[in-house]
């Protein structure tokens, strides 16, 4: 209760600063318009349907990039988690690849895939595939050997053992990887929509800045953050529902 009170007052305080500082002229209102003005703009964008149009375009890109990440990361992670030799062989290149940020690679992607949709999806893929791959590998690798032994004692093996034991045991780790991947996808969205885009929340941020519609820019940033948070929450709830047995304690 006290925690909630504290959190609400901190949030209100920040909002008050955002409102007050530009108004009394301590911060240039052309660079940081008061919160109320941004809120009004946000509302306008929402009512006109423009915000949703941009959000939809961005969601499309993120879903596509994330889907490819899942389709690549989960099976590859399963292979790496199941076969030591495979993991050891791929470990070097993958560790190196993981270190190269998606943004640094954007020029390369543009070179190969042009400035169209493809390179946008590729950069989102690059950002989100690593946590999915790594979490899946670790999840599969660290399945409790006791469970494997127990299933083997009931003559489970091969594909059955995998489907009935390894996969469900690794599922929480895989879910966490996907959730992290989605968060990373949102982080690179603005970069992805920096070049050759004419719609999307990231585009809206950049474009508003270029044409000096600063309230629009802030409205788009707020929308982007809210959207990312919403998707994360959604994935979190899906994850919890799929793995109720984990927090089944109590009762």
């Amino acid at each position: 209760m006290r925690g909630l009170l504290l959190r609400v007052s901190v949030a209100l305080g920040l909002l008050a600063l955002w409102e007050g500082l530009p108004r009394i002229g301590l911060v240039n209102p052309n660079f940081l318009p008061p919160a109320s003005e941004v809120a009004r703009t946000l509302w306008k964008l929402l009512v006109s349907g423009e915000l949703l149009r941009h959000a939809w375009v961005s969601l499309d890109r993120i879903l596509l990039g994330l889907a490819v990440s899942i389709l690549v990361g989960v099976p590859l992670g399963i292979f790496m988690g199941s076969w030591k030799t495979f993991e050891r062989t791929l470990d070097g290149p993958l560790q190196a690849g993981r270190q190269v940020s998606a943004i640094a690679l954007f020029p390369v992607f543009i070179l190969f895939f042009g400035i169209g949709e493809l390179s946008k999806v590729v950069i989102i893929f690059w950002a989100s595939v690593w946590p999915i791959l790594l979490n899946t590998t670790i999840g599969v690798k660290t399945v409790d050997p006791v469970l494997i032994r127990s299933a083997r004692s009931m003559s489970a093996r091969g594909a059955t053992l995998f489907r009935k034991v390894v996969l469900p045991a690794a599922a929480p780790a895989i879910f966490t990887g996907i959730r992290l991947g989605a968060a990373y996808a949102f982080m690179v969205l603005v970069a992805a929509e920096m070049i050759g885009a004419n719609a999307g929340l990231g585009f809206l941020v950049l474009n508003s800045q270029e044409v000096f519609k600063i309230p629009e820019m802030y409205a788009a940033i707020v929308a982007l953050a809210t959207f990312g948070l919403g998707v994360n929450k959604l994935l979190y709830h899906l994850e919890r529902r799929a793995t109720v047995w984990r927090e089944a304690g109590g009762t």
Partner: protein
Amino acid sequence: MQPSIDIRNVSKSYGGGTAPGGLLALDDVSLQVGQGEFLAILGPSGCGKSTLLHVVAGLTPARGEILVQGKKVTGPGLDRGVVFQDYALFPWRTALDNVAFGLEMKKVPRHLRAASAYKYLKMVGLAGFEDRYPAQLSGGMKQRVAIARALAFDPEVLLMDEPFAALDAQTREILQTELLRIWEQTGKTILFVTHAIDEAIYLAQRVVVMTARPGRIKQIVDIDLPWPRVDSDVRSSRPFALLRHRIWELLAGEVEKAQHLASSRDPVPGRSRGGVAADAVAQEVV
């Protein structure tokens, strides 16, 4: 009559056979378990009890030969049900679905599984807990589920590896008595590994005392206490005390040797727990 489990000259070494650096865990063990017999294997920590059980379960390859109901063991099979010390329940399955696992492996049609699994949950006293996940069950309840799971696919024999070692004293005694009831009810052959002397005497018809590593059979002690032991006060009877003393004398030297082994050179550090067994033995004696 043919024995239910026939263990013939089984030896097992870890890490490189008889080569130097290898570790001989079982040395030429031969043992017959009769049809419907309850047999306990008792020995100091690290003497190879679990190894022997895993070999019979088909989980670990070894030299020698094992027959279960006259059939040679070549791997795991549904003719043997295993209960492990650490429950080994699948945490993402409800109690009922855990019990049904072996039935799925046995290809029992879906519509028959639930009823069959429920029957065994009821047998272990867990009717009404079908939908609980393992995280929602106490240690004793988890082990009941594990026992129901091992019984549900109707194996010929039950292999139990210190199933009650992780439980508190009261729960352990309750489950021991329940196990005897289930044994009488189902008539299964039970091979029961323990390092608690009282438990072995209370449950078994015969107790096999093993030597310290490498595990060999030191002596087989007949437990000629009256049946049924359920609900009777055998534990505090004079014959019980005599048996306990006799077995303790057989075991004491081996426990000392095991402790010595553990403290000197152990190729796999941390696997032997000589101290624990010594403690357990000391407890049983006072």
